[in-house]
């Protein structure tokens, strides 16, 4: 599915629950797939007793990856031109994450219509864990 320029306008939103009660197993699964085995994400005694955190927490890139799904489900596959985020708060096991994408502007690049999109992913307390922007090519 792809988006047509005529079908979107600034302020349009798309929202999706990315994870309910995020599990430690999913964090381990992401470690294995990405290759990032940092003990902060995979090793409870290390995260707690050595690094001084309450426990393990998710890779920022796991949240960015899950948030990317919201974008590609909305704008279509292979349509992203840019995708960037800041990691603004940690994501813990048990968190429920909801991502929202908002069209900021529809512009054009090299003759193609392009949507500029603001992104925020929040946890169950409403705290932003990821904020960012994306640009996606639309159908004319």
């Amino acid at each position: 599915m792809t988006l047509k320029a005529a079908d979107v306008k600034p302020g349009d939103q798309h929202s999706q629950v990315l994870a309910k009660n995020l599990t430690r197993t999913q964090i381990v699964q992401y470690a294995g797939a990405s290759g990032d085995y940092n003990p902060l994400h995979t090793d409870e005694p290390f995260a707690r007793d050595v690094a001084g955190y309450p426990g393990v927490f998710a890779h920022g890139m796991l949240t960015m990856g899950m948030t990317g799904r919201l974008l590609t489900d909305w704008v279509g596959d292979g349509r992203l031109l840019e995708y960037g985020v800041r990691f603004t708060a940690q994501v813990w096991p048990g968190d429920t994450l909801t991502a929202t994408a908002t069209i900021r502007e529809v512009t054009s690049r090299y003759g193609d219509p392009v949507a500029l999109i603001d992104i925020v992913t929040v946890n169950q307390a409403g705290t932003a864990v990821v904020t960012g922007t994306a640009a996606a090519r639309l159908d004319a």
Partner: protein
Amino acid sequence: MSVERFPVEEGHVLTFARAIGDDNPVYRDPQYAAASEVGGLIAPPTFTIASAQWDPDYPLRPKPGVKWWGSGAQATPEPKAGGVAPDGGSSAPKGGGALHAEQHFTYHRAVRVGDVLSSTSRPGATWEKAGRSGKLVFNEHITEFRDASGELVVTARSVSVLRQPLEDNE
């Protein structure tokens, strides 16, 4: 992090898509993908981060015969102030090491299963901020992923942050 050879493999894309909870068939079903607009299996937008698997020196992966800084029977004790970076053979860095602050991707085209990419990385800007409990040091890295014909596929800009507690700033 520079990687000489990063083959984008079907099974790796499958497991990566599973790990981010994305069951889009364009990442796992060759027939669906072939009939779709992109014309074949592609990788999710953040997949190039997994090029770490192809970096022989990637520090955040245990290696045979090299002391790992995570816990076994016990958690490794914290080193003295100014702890060593996670270089594969050291004890744990103080406070657990640097964290990921920002990640930005520019896509020149989609990453496809069957691509053999390579990457080159260069340092970008460095800046500092005063935090609540010490100094925050930010480091930027820019990594370019190119295909076998040398065409740019993805440009990645990564920012890490290292917290330097007040007692270390003497």
